[in-house]
């Protein structure tokens, strides 16, 4: 008996140390308050303090990120993590003003549009250089946009371009197949970053990495970090910080700890249950703004079971959005019932709501012809909190007799499966962060294009695989409608139509949460999570 007593004693002492922390107040539902350390703008972007000329700033700023960079080729992917890198290394023809969402000059210093809206003529400055010092000309733009046609990620955006004509080194004319109100908005997207023709032709793999931006790639260790150094020859003057490092921390708690120990200067996406720590820490500051990252569940409409509208409606009624917000976001989120994002033109304020109602869900299931226990669906999720949301959904569905199997995978793999042309998935928990125009959103999310053989193929971000000709027609009509009031009514009608089909279940939008060291200046925190770090600087 002696040996048992001894070992128990040791164990108890050890355990005592470990759990001496005591209990903590249970996370209550936090009331929503908007906090930011800079000025919030009309679009919800938060600008940090201005970078001042007489202050000495640190040489390096390290940003802790949750998603790894997967490529540095602007036409090689659409992921947010990569976009933020492209904003540093490349430039686009035009940009979106974070203050009001308007289109402002980027690489192009000015442009004119023809009467019929189909021809754009751009003028560039003559002193633009790539980060290796070589001169930029309009040829590089033509090269980039032509190349985009063969990239599976970027071709959508240049689909409407009929021809590109290089007038001279600083002038370019682009002619579209039809007038597109949102053309410039598309050209502001990170995937349309301008690359160097010479560099790409010399090195097809690494050539695209170089742009005309304020930084150049220094070194990239996948799974660990990616660092960028300042390009001192930037025509508008060099950036305040010499080196920016994106350091990967997959886990939110580890990332936050790194911020608290000073290892990193910015912590993107801390876990919502840890936000209190940032607020209590004197050396840190919390940036918080409502985001336009809409969490939703697409339903692959050509899979057995999901092709039945009543099954889809049953799943919609089984989505307990309130509990998901409570458990997965610690209460820090807003329920979303619309099919387009908050702030987009034509958002229908009176849209029908699929409230969490298990009785209605069972009714719909009964109407579908399937019995409880017949159906099993797989749902794909990535990040930690999405798993919690999926577990809640799984539980609700089990109460109406639909079995849900959860498949967890890394974000990149999830994207891969969604992009896989075989479309071998059923449900997913995914998000979209679109503010590139209502038509672009609806067309990409739910639209389809006629192929040469007359069949319809789903568009790029159409995760629900919806192929509805009537929807396409309604969209096309709204796109060319010049009367704004009527256009708005058109979009209301489109949303109502979508609601009847129920291709996705919108869940919620939440907050951009970022922990930064006090005094961090120059960054612009965007509600679509594609932050602008070009002028970021940390005072010494």
């Amino acid at each position, binding site marked *: 008996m002696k040996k048992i007593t*001894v*070992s128990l004693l040791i164990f108890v002492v050890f355990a005592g140390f*470990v759990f001496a922390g005591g209990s903590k107040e249970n996370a209550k539902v936090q009331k929503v308050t908007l906090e930011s350390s800079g000025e919030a703008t009309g679009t919800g972007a938060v600008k940090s303090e201005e970078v001042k000329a007489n202050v000495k700033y640190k040489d390096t700023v390290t940003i802790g990120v949750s998603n790894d960079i*997967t490529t540095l080729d602007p036409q090689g992917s659409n992921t947010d993590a990569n976009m933020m890198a492209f904003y540093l290394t490349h430039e686009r023809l035009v940009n979106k003003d974070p203050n009001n969402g308007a289109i402002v000059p980027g690489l192009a210093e000015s442009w004119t549009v023809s009467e019929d809206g189909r021809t754009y003529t751009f003028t560039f400055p003559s002193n633009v250089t790539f980060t290796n010092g070589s001169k930029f000309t309009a040829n590089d733009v033509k090269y980039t946009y032509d190349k985009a046609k063969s*990239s599976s990620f970027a071709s959508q955006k240049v689909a409407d371009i009929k021809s590109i004509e290089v007038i001279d080194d600083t002038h370019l004319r682009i002619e579209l197949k039809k007038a597109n109100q949102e053309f410039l908005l598309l050209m502001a997207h990170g995937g349309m970053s301008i690359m160097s023709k010479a560099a790409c032709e010399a090195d097809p*793999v690494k050539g695209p990495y170089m742009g005309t931006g304020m930084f150049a790639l220094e070194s990239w260790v996948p799974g660990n970090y990616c660092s960028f150094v300042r390009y001192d020859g930037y025509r508008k003057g060099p950036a305040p910080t010499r080196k920016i490092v994106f350091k990967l921390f997959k886990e939110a708690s580890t990332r936050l700890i790194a911020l608290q120990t000073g290892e990193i200067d910015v912590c993107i996406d801390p876990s919502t249950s840890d936000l209190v720590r940032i607020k209590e820490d004197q050396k840190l500051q919390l940036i918080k703004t409502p985001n336009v990252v809409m969490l939703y569940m697409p339903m692959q409409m050509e899979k057995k079971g999901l092709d039945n509208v009543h099954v889809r409606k049953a799943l919609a009624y089984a989505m307990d959005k309130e509990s998901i917000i409570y458990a997965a976001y610690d209460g820090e989120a807003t329920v979303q019932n619309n099919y387009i994002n908050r702030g987009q033109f034509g958002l229908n304020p009176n849209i029908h709501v699929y409230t969490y109602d298990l009785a209605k869900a069972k009714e719909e299931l009964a109407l579908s012809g399937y019995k409880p226990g017949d159906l099993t669906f797989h749902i794909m999720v990535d990040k930690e909190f999405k798993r919690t949301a999926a577990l809640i959904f799984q539980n609700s569905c089990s109460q109406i007799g639909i079995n849900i199997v959860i498949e967890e995978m890394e974000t990149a793999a999830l994207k891969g499966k969604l992009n896989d042309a*075989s479309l071998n998935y059923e449900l997913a928990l995914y998000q979209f962060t679109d503010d590139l125009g209502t038509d672009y959103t609806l067309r990409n999310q739910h639209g389809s294009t006629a192929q040469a053989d007359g069949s319809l193929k789903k568009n790029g971000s159409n995760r629900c695989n919806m192929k509805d000709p009537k929807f396409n027609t309604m969209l096309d009509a709204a796109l060319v409608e010049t009367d704004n009031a009527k256009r708005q009514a058109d979009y209301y009608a489109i949303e109502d139509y979508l609601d009847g089909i129920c291709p996705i279940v919108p869940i919620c939008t939440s907050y951009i949460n970022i922990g930064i060291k006090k005094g961090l200046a120059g960054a612009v925190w965007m509600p679509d999570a594609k932050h602008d770090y070009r002028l970021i600087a940390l005072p010494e």
Partner: protein
Amino acid sequence: MYKYIIKRLLMLIPVLLGVAFVIFAIMNVAEGDPVYQVAGPDATQEQLEALRVEMGLNGSLLQRYFRYIGKLLQGDLGVSYISKMDVMKLYLQRLPNTLRLASLAMLVAVVISVPLGIVAAVNQNTWKDTLAMILALIGLSMPNFWLGLLLMLLFALKLGWFPSGGAEGFASVILPAVTVGVGLAALLTRTTRSSMLDVLRQDYLRTARAKGVSERKVIYHHALRNALIPIITIFGVQFSNVLGGSVLAETVFAWPGVGRLVVDAIDQRDIPTVTGALIMTTMLVTIVNLVVDIVYAYVDPRIKAQYTK
């Protein structure tokens, strides 16, 4: 002696090829056509076909296997689906970290277990012995990642003595090394103890004692040297387990080693990286086992005699 080495080296080759085949076959059973992951949603059929050839996905399993081996012999493990970086380069970037972790873990294990095992053997059946054996048993029964979590909780989060993750500085390797080392220490303690017990019983020690050699010298000089032989064997064999255990420790402490490379690659469905890393790791283990066997054969005079006739 050389005959033995050459014989073992020759046997190594089919084993390595077999290992590569087993892993290759397993990884290629995974469903889904990886070409879509790389291509993107709007690729045409021709683009897909061209990409398949580029990625080496055409042909039967055997054809792909031989192509893979051919490239492997040139040091080319293919390219990651996700980052498009050379897999061999990715692996070699991470390998030093894992080796650092593994060697420190083994050091920790030896430092803990050998003295503990000796104390237990010399004080057989006293409370010292029982305590040592109970600790060893607990160490064997604990899942090492749980120990890692507890260590992280106590020493990193609550006390702040060590960092809770990452690879900055020397302090960051201590907790992961202890995590991996404890399991091995538990095993080695038991082995040391039983090995010492066997040897302590031997007659030649009685002779030494009768001759007046001090007890200390009896234990350390005579007994330990002979007891070490089975310890060294187990040690070598356990390298494989240490590498396996480091996979868990690397995950808990976000240590940028080979184990985490494999786990991350699996999450990303990055088959070339998983295959390449598994093959390289297994080859490493096989070679280490071979080296240990040769050293063992050299050290154990019985085997040495067999082969130097």
